[in-house]
């Protein structure tokens, strides 16, 4: 290996890369903007949706209840809902969003109440539809208040204390530090995002430096120079790796800042400060995630270059690499699934292991044995991938495929 030649190839590739708008977009702009847009978009969208849903006075229909004026009057008295006249097509009206929910009062409800026979009131709503869920919530709250009032009156009539029906109370207390609470909320997606974006950053340079060279006719030009294939591959690989690394650094930085902003925004919000959501990621976690992503970036760079080299054109390479994105997304997504936790076997599965360990790091858990295993195994996979890339560059059938 001639380091000078590797450096010359790398410098040239860097110059070209910095002048290429497409790779700059995928390497710099996407990771820089993805997180702020995602976070601010999520906050804005949820604020708008929840705000408008909360602002609306939901229309509620009462089914039956003619013989139970007490409960009907209690519902009508609630200013947070609007009771509309009964119609047979109430189910369609809920689906069509003309009304938000319907309350079905069983026949003889009032009489049963007086007798002390238990009865069930059904609240019909559309699950997944925010405004319908809010409507059902209002109805439930209203009925609960009516029931509590009824119980209270009955206890008073019999001269019994309120504590008779609630002899004790329960309360949950969180012992996890705020960092871990924040980490568990968002940690599962951080490793996933870093992995996906470090791959995204490597895709375009990998294509450009292999299939792109073939398509432009510069492959034969460079192969006619005295540079060895090994030096040529290493120079090109370093550029693809740099692009992947840049994307990883920018995405981690952008992510850290976005979550810091999100944490700040949420802690300033009176509605959510009590929910215990804390977004303090910490510099150590960010650096650790970045370090774990390093060997994975090497692996991505070498594999993407090798696969793209088989293609004759940019488009062909894109069609090869698109399915590869799914290969990366599947283990990365698997790590986000509830119940999937790091164990000695999973620590050897590339991508999934890094994603899982990033999840742990973000929650402040450092299992050094697992971290070392994952780092070392990913380094081994990366070294194998580089070796295959060099070998592929020496295959005439690949370089001059017709």
């Amino acid at each position, binding site marked *: 290996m001639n380091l000078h030649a590797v450096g010359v190839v790398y410098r040239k590739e860097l*110059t070209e890369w910095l002048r290429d708008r497409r790779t700059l977009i995928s390497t710099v702009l996407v990771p820089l903007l993805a997180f702020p847009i995602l976070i601010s978009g999520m906050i804005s969208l949820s604020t708008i949706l929840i705000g408008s849903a909360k602002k609306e006075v939901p229309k509620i229909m009462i089914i039956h209840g003619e013989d139970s004026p007490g409960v009907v009057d209690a519902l009508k008295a609630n200013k947070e809902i609007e009771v509309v006249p009964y119609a047979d097509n109430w189910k369609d009206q809920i689906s069509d969003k003309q009304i938000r929910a319907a309350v079905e009062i069983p026949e003889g409800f009032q009489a049963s109440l007086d007798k002390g026979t238990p009865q069930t009131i059904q609240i019909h709503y559309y699950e997944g539809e925010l405004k319908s869920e809010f409507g059902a919530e209002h109805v439930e709250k209203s009925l609960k208040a009516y029931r509590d009032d009824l119980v209270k009156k009955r206890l008073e009539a019999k001269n019994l204390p309120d504590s008779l029906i609630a002899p004790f109370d329960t309360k949950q207390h969180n012992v996890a530090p705020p960092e871990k609470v924040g980490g568990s909320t968002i940690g599962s997606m951080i490793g996933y995002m870093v992995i996906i974006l470090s791959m995204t950053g490597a895709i375009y340079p990998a294509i450009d430096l292999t299939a792109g060279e073939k398509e432009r006719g510069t492959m034969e030009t460079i192969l006619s120079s005295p540079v*060895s294939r090994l030096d040529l591959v290493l120079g090109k690989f370093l550029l693809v790796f740099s692009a992947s690394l840049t994307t990883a650094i920018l995405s981690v930085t952008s992510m850290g800042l976005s979550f810091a902003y999100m944490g700040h925004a949420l802690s300033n919000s009176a509605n959510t400060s009590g929910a215990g959501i804390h977004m303090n990621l910490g510099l150590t976690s960010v650096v650790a995630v970045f370090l774990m992503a390093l060997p994975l970036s090497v692996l991505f760079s070498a594999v993407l270059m090798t696969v793209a080299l088989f293609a004759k054109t940019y488009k062909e390479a894109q069609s090869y690499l698109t399915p590869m994105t799914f290969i990366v997304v599947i283990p990365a997504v698997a790590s986000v699934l509830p119940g999937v936790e790091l164990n000695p076997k999973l620590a050897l599965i590339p991508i999934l292991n890094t994603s899982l360990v990033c999840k742990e790091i973000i929650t402040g858990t450092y299992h050094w044995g697992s971290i070392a295993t994952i780092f070392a195994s990913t380094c081994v996979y990366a070294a194998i991938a580089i070796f295959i890339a060099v070998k592929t560059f020496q295959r005439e059938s690949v370089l001059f495929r017709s």
Partner: protein
Amino acid sequence: MIDARALSKRFQDKKRGEIRAVENVSFECQPGKIYGLLGANGAGKTTTLRMLATILEPTDGTAIINGFDVVEHPEKVRASVGFLSTATALYPRLTAQEMVEYFGRLNGLDEPTLKKRIDDIFSRLDMNTFRDRRCDKLSTGMKQKTSIARTLIHDPPVMIFDEPTTGLDVMTARTIIGFIADCRDRGKTVIFSTHIMSEVERLCDHIGIIHGGKLLEEGTLTELRAKHNEHNLEEIIVKVVGPLANAEA
């Protein structure tokens, strides 16, 4: 000099099986001389020249270029060769000067030598007006000059041209032809392939006619004319290749 010794190249094709692109081709080309390799499309010209430039490795046989074996020392061979073909394009996002500098550095030139060589070549080829222009903004003629400068930067003793004028306009083709003649006059060993007979008649000291991967005929233009009792080179090629081509058809 170039000394091709029983060069052969076979490829594996999934549909057609083994393809013998070049079979047992031997010839010599001396410094200060131009060797013209003639043949139809698919005759084996490009594969032969690519083996000489070490872009492809021979399946059998070898070639000695400037004293180096193409199989044993491919990198030293490439350092002794300037290779130009219509397939050797330029990097679109580099300027003409950066393109030439890149190849100078890959050839191990130190910075002062590189600068001096670039100034000399750019002046000689009248390239100073576009030296800082990106290659994707250059005209065809400018691109060809930049490619020539790229092949000359390390002052190689051997020049290999694979159909260098194919698809070029008359003026650009003239620049290339002039450049090939200039290489010979400077004592370089030159080999080139072409379809254009006028170029062969004007430039070549020695001619090889290749067909089906085999070198069928070799000699000076005068020798070939005498042997086939035919003045027109195109007719000579038809006489040499024709029977085989008809048999294949």
